[in-house]
C-alpha cells in the first residue's frame, strides 16, 4: 500500500517540474500551464495529507484550489490575448514594450 511519503514525493516532483517550466520557458501559454502543473502537485499533497490524517479539511482546500485555478486561468489567458493583440508576440523575452 502506498504511504504518505510516496504521495509527498510525487507532489514535490510535480511541483518541481512545474517550477522548471515556469522559470525557463519562453511561451506565455506554457508558463500558465506550468502554474497549473504546480497547482496539481499541491492538490495531490493536500488530498494525501487529508486522507492519511483522516481530516476532511484538505479535501475542501483542494476544492478551493480548483476554483482558484479556474479564476487564475481566465485572467491569465485574457492577459495573454491582450499582449498578443497589442505586441503581436507571446514570447516573454520579446516583450520589450516597457523598456527604458
Amino acid at each position, binding site marked *: *500500500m*502506498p504511504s504518505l511519503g510516496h504521495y509527498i514525493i*510525487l507532489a514535490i516532483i510535480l511541483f518541481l517540474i512545474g517550477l522548471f517550466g515556469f522559470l525557463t520557458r519562453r511561451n506565455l*501559454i506554457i508558463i500558465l500551464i506550468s502554474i497549473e502543473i504546480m497547482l496539481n502537485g499541491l492538490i495531490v499533497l493536500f488530498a494525501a495529507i487529508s486522507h492519511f490524517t483522516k481530516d476532511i479539511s484538505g479535501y475542501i482546500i483542494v476544492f478551493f484550489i480548483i476554483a482558484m485555478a479556474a479564476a487564475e486561468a481566465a*485572467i491569465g489567458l485574457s492577459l495573454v490575448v491582450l499582449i498578443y493583440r497589442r505586441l503581436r508576440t507571446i514570447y516573454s523575452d520579446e516583450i520589450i514594450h516597457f523598456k527604458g
Partner: protein
Amino acid sequence: MNWDLIIFYYLAIVMIFSSVFAIFSRHPIYTVLLVLIMIIHQAFLLLTLGAEFLTVVQLIVYAGAILVLFLFVVYLINLRKETKRNIFIKKISIVALVFLLLSAILIKNLFIFLSLSPSFKAYLPFNLEEKPNVWWIANYLFRNYLLQFEIIGVILLVAIFGACFLIRKVKIVEEK
C-alpha cells in the same frame, strides 16, 4: 499481488512523464494535450485517496473547462511560423541556479517532514466510513467553511468581470 502499489506507480509514472514531455514539447497544442493526460490520471489518483467527489470535480472543471480554455487560446493565437526557434530562454544558467536552490530547500524540508511523521497508515480506498465522501465535504463546506465558499464565489465573479473588461478594452484600442 499488491494492486494498490501497482496502481499508484502506474498513475505516478504516467503523471510525471506526461508533465515532463509537456514542459519540453515544442508546440503548445502538445503541451495542452499532455497536461490533459496528466489531469485525468491525477483524477484517478484522487480516487485512490478516497475522494470520489474531488475526482468528478477535477474531471469536470480541469479537463472540461480550464484546458478547453487553454485550447481555445492556443487555436486563437496562431504560432505556426515561430515554433522553429529555441523554446527556452537565453539566460538559462542563472535560472537553473535558482531552480536548484529552490529544489534543494524543498527536498531538505521533505526529509525533515518525513523524519517527523512516519506513523501514518494507509487504509483501503472505497470503504472509508459508513458515510460517503460527498456527505463529509458538504457538511464541512457549508458549516465550517461557509465564508470561504462565499469568497471563492466573489473571486470567480471578479475574474469573469476582469476577463470581459480586458478583452473589451483591446477592441476599443484597435478601433482607433
